[in-house]
């Protein structure tokens, strides 16, 4: 009996879910704004994996998933650029990147 190890869709989905969970956890609990940004990148990449895996396994002929993944990477790059700029602006004002101190959205 030969143990065949093949990578199926489920593996990809589990990997993606784990990545997404780690990212989400970081977004929710990290105090440092830059860490939060990095965690968001994790979540986005989890989504990218989903896109590509499903595209490959469910609709192998066309490349909609792949195109979407590239699209997401582009947008993520822009988002990180703006995010970092905002964090720098806040840091100049507050001399801090601790999210706990950023509660001015309150009433």
């Amino acid at each position, binding site marked *: 009996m030969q143990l065949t190890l093949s990578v199926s*869709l*489920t593996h990809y*989905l589990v990997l993606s879910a784990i990545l997404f969970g780690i990212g*989400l956890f970081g*977004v*929710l*609990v990290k105090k440092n704004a830059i860490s*939060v940004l990095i965690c968001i990148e994790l979540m986005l990449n989890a989504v990218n994996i*989903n896109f590509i895996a*499903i595209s490959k396994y*469910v609709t192998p002929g066309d490349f909609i998933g792949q195109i979407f993944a590239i699209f997401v990477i582009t947008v993520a790059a822009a988002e990180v650029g703006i995010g970092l700029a905002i964090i720098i602006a806040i840091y100049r004002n507050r001399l801090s990147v601790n*999210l*706990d101190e*950023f*509660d*001015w*959205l*309150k*009433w």
Partner: protein
Amino acid sequence: MVEFAMQHAWLVPLLPALSFVIIVLLTRPWQKLSALVSIACMVSSCVIATLAAYGIFTNHEFTEKPLVYAARWFSLGLPGAPDLVVNVGVQLDPTSAMMIFMVSLVASLIQIYSVGYMEGDPGFSVFFSYLSLFASSMLLLVISSNLLQMFVAWELVGLCSYLLIGFYTHKISAREAAKKAFVTCRVADFGLLLGLLSLQIVFGTLDMVELSEKIHHFQEYTTAGVLTLIAVLVFIGPIGKSGQFPLHVWLPDAMEGPTPVSALIHAATMVVAGVYLVGRTMFLFSQVPAAMELVAVTGAFTALFAASIALTQREIKRILAYSTVSQLGYMMLALGVGSLTASMFHLWTHAFFKALMFLGAGSVLHALHHKADVWEMGGLIKKMPVTGWTFVIGGLAIAGIPPFAGFWSKDEILSMAFNSGHYVLFAMGAITAFMTAFYMWRLIFLAFFGDEKPENHPHESPVFMTAPLVVLAFLATVGGLVGTPWTPWDINWANWIWFHEAHHAEPNYMVMLGSVILAGAGIFLAYQLYYVDKARAKAHALADKYRALHTLSYNKFYIDEIYLWFNHSIVDGAAKLFFLFDIYIVDGIIINGIAAVTRLFGEGARISQTGRLQNYALVFFLGVLAVAVILAFTNPSSAGLMLGGVK
């Protein structure tokens, strides 16, 4: 000419309306020009009215069947009910022809008189514009072919009455009187409006000709009870407008207005609108005997009641005002006993002699610089012969001395009350006749005869004022001759204005003699008390002897005070109750309560707003999770879809 006037009778109300517009928009800065425009329009209107009336009275067919020119005003399609169709038009029959003639004639005379009376008043032009508007509305009222149209005019005359009573806006009493008149009439008009609406609902029309045919066999539409209720509701309007008890209170106060207004509106024309309305809707009242009795009793009681107040009043115009209320009661009495003829006849003669007396009173007030107490006058006839003697003619006419106008009409009313078997009402009318003669001659002896008062410097009024007096005195003398029992049947009043059927008034010599004796006795008593007895000691002694009665009469039976008490205690009490209800229930619970609950929720929800992004993100995530779980449990296929589309 006559043909033209009859076809274009709509011009009669329109011309004064035109002059109102012209004065208000164009000629207001030029007083004399305004007066000229107003009088020119009024006289033209009077000429057309006279010609139209002539046409009606020389052609007997219109007595049976009125001449109606009507056009569609508006119509409303109502779901599940007959369409509401309202026509507007002119209806000419002898009654309305008589009215347009009388109203336009008296209005013309009074406008001419006003040129003298209102001279130098800053509101001269405005006064004439109001008079024009009033004349227009009043003529529209009498000429209406539709009850809704009549109601519109009815409210318009009420408005003019309000404006003219309160004409001297700087006087608080005038403003108060205007409000009182308006509010009192509004109370009554509410009843009238309900009556008219009921008529529309039950019979589906308000056109008078059509309505009279339908009511003639009303059993097809409704029961006698409902019809009685409608008649009573309709009658509430005239109670207010014609100053019948218990809504007479506004009329004496209305004398705060300029005297020509009192003469025109509160003696000759507007106040008889109520009588005219009942006369016009006789087809309704004659079907319900109970309502007729109500009209008769109200009329008789008002006549007696007002006369007993007039006995002791001191202000000249107030005496005349109560006399007007009393005479209006007579007219109502005549309608109640079923005689349209007698009622309209008295309306006709009353318009002349009462307008005459009011204008005479105005002339006196003009001469004495508005000193109104008759006890402070005296001997005026020497300095003011025209005013004085025309006033005496008016006094003879209202007292009922033949051959003056009032005798014939009053006599006809008394005969009708007697012949119809209403002996109590007849007795009340007879007592009123005696009182009328007494108080009117008390006024005349006190004001015009006796010793002159040195502090007064009377002078005769200008010709603008005396000329209308002379014309009215002439009419008050001969105006009744059209309705005497000996007038040839062809030109006799009773041959033209009647309800159901014309009947020649058989002279009732008993009643006739009795009423002359009563009138003579009244005058003689006044002569003894106020002329022979120069010091009036006997009159004072009499007043002292019956002090309670005198006080009661002098204070108008405290009706005003009763209303005041009613308003203060009951209406104000209810108002306080409603105020508390408003404060605690409406404001407290409904408005502030809801606000407080909302606020509470707001306070609660506020806590969740921490301002920390991560908290929001957590809630957001939990929300998505919840949606996913719910979808997974309620719709397994969509759950599969979410897990990557894997089956």
